[in-house]
């Protein structure tokens, strides 16, 4: 059986491999190629070298603005999402009454699509700001915090589930032993729970990091960049460059490639750093 699986594994791999090639590798390679060309549709591209990359950074300041905005957003939301998710996970793994109900409720926002969420929060935030005679488009800070709140609301539930799984995996004997040795609850948290849930942290920070960078629907529906382009994040900026300006398709594509490299490097770096903190019980 084993040897025949070894002999034929390639056949079993083939469907996935084909799908992966057709839907991922090919578009990706094509995308990188297109970033060096000027084109209207993907079939009439003309090679222009690095011009698109130069334009992406020097053409106007929208890309760098979007980059800075995205970085700020990512930092804030990675911290808040993980903090709140972990606290919730701690609370909901203590065997309180109605734990399952609470878990389901906190997880639910994650099931709603980004566009719908964006519009819902737009209405809510505008409603809050109405008594002050302004709206979401008035100040870029409103949009920024609006996005942070929205992202938290959406992602906390998901991350919470991952943390709960991590916390439940800790052997009760360890905690019991610590209690007998006279450890305070805070000591248990710091010396046992935290180190042993490091794998969950790795996953959750990875997910929040990449999700924050790639955020698009929520951004589009909540502010669409208003006021001006001040609250547009990288993905939205790329989209606007690609579709909003005649002859800028290549530049949008170049921004996309830069975006990919950036997210890839950051994500790898993050995984490497948090991995190194993981311990075995």
């Amino acid at each position, binding site marked *: *059986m084993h040897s*025949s*699986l070894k002999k*034929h594994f390639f*056949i*079993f791999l*083939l*469907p996935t491999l084909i799908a992966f090639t057709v839907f991922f590798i090919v578009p990706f390679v094509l995308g990188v190629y297109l970033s060096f060309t000027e084109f*209207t*549709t*993907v*079939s*009439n591209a003309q090679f222009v070298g690095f011009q698109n990359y130069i334009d992406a950074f020097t053409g*106007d300041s929208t890309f760098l603005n979007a980059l800075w905005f995205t970085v700020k957003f990512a930092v804030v939301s990675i911290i808040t999402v993980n903090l709140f998710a972990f606290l919730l996970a701690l609370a909901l793994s203590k065997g309180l009454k109605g734990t399952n109900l609470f878990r389901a409720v906190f997880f639910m926002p994650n099931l709603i699509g980004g566009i719908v969420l964006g519009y819902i929060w*737009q209405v809510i935030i*505008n409603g809050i700001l*109405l008594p002050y*005679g*302004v*709206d*979401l*488009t*008035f100040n870029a800070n409103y949009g920024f915090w609006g996005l942070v709140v929205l992202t938290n609301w959406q992602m906390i539930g998901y991350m919470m589930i991952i943390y709960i799984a991590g916390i439940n995996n800790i052997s009760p004997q360890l905690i019991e032993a610590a209690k007998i040795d006279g450890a305070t609850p805070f000591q248990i948290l710091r010396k046992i729970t935290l180190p042993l849930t490091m794998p969950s942290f790795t996953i959750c920070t990875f997910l929040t990091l990449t999700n924050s960078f790639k955020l698009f629907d929520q951004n589009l529906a909540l*502010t*669409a*960049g*208003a*006021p*001006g*382009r001040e609250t547009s994040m990288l993905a939205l900026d790329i989209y*606007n460059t690609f*579709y*909003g*300006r*005649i*002859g*800028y*398709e290549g530049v949008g594509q170049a921004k996309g490639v830069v975006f990919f490299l950036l997210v890839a490097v950051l994500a790898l770096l993050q995984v490497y750093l948090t991995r190194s903190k993981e311990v075995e019980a």
Partner: protein
Amino acid sequence: MKKFLSPILAALIALLAIFTTGCMGKTDDMNNDTQTIYYLNFKPEIAEAWEEIAKVYKDQKGVELKIVTAASGTYEQTLKSEMAKTEAPTIFQINGPKGFVNWKDYCKDLKDSELYKILSDKSLAVTSNGGVYGIPYVVEGYGIIYNSQIMDKYFSLDGKKVSINSTEEINSFDTLKAVVEDMTRLKGELGIEGVFGATSLQTGEDWRWHTHLANIPLYYEFTDKNIDLAGDDTKKIDLKYAENFKNVFDLYINNSTTDKKLLGSKSVADSMAEFALGKCAMIQNGNWAWSQINKVSGNTVKQENIKFLPIYTGTSSDATQGLCIGTENFLCINKNVDETKQKLSEDFLYWLFSSSDGKKFVTEKLDFIAPFDTFEEDEVPGDPLAKEVIRWMKKDNVTTIPWNFTVFPSQNFKESFGSALLSYAQGKHDFETLKNNVISAWEKESK
């Protein structure tokens, strides 16, 4: 367990193989079918009418017409992806000279086509170096739409301060301003929340201002400078008539249903609903807005009370100014598809705009004011705003303003104009800054 696993997996692979070859076989079939033409529709509000046309055309001529409608505001995106497919649209549309620059590799020269021959005003077509690449299929007009019921009520009030007695007498910006401001004073008695509907400045909903309203001052500027719109002279503007733009824009935002600072979250649909429900008396929009007004539930505006007024801006030409009438919808034929398909597409368009069945669809279902010789005087759409557009077109001593915004540099320019307008409305910067922003954005985007 493992014993069963491999046959199951093998079966799955087999299924997958059948599925993929099945799909491929299907596309092959469609490629061979030269009796299919494909129109990428721009106007979602008439998507159903197009489907009906396709059905009738198939019955009459045996040619399959495939209609795909791009969602509102996503035509360029959809066109870009559809064009890259093997089965690309055979008929598509561009929005004027700027759109042509983007799609020149795809537009067929229609100089010798039947459709161009029946075009009543040849100057409307998109031309380049003697070739004809885009043919307008609908003429539209915009101005200030007003509810004559509310206006009549105002003019019958004892407390009114203006000397004129009907909306027809308004023929300059000063009169308009006097009437509007007096109406704002009396809005309680008139039962309205503001004279104008919300000046929608949400991103993507601000085209009525950065495109339509801005057309008027720029039209006067281009006319003064005698600029050839097809040439490179449009690459720079100095907004000579900026003050006139400010006149109207200020009038809109100061006499509106909505506070100036809240305009950033209002959409066109919001303001059209206000008009339909009688919460405001005037609104700037075009004849396409009829379907929108008509569809609002609880609509209180009667069909016969919807009228057009030109957008007076306070220039010396106010008295003779008409509505802004033109088009930004030009049909093109894709020259990269099969020759037979190109011919079939041309035949279809000619059929639509010249045969009696086709024309009936155009006036009754599509509600187009079609710019072709083949349409008789009485073959026009029946909706009140289209009738008004025609009435204004036919008026003597009135100069119709063409749609010069087709030379506006790019969507990006319009968006930055829109956000500058929003900041101005919110009081974050003054009009001078707005003006300079627009001038520099125009120049930058025209490169």
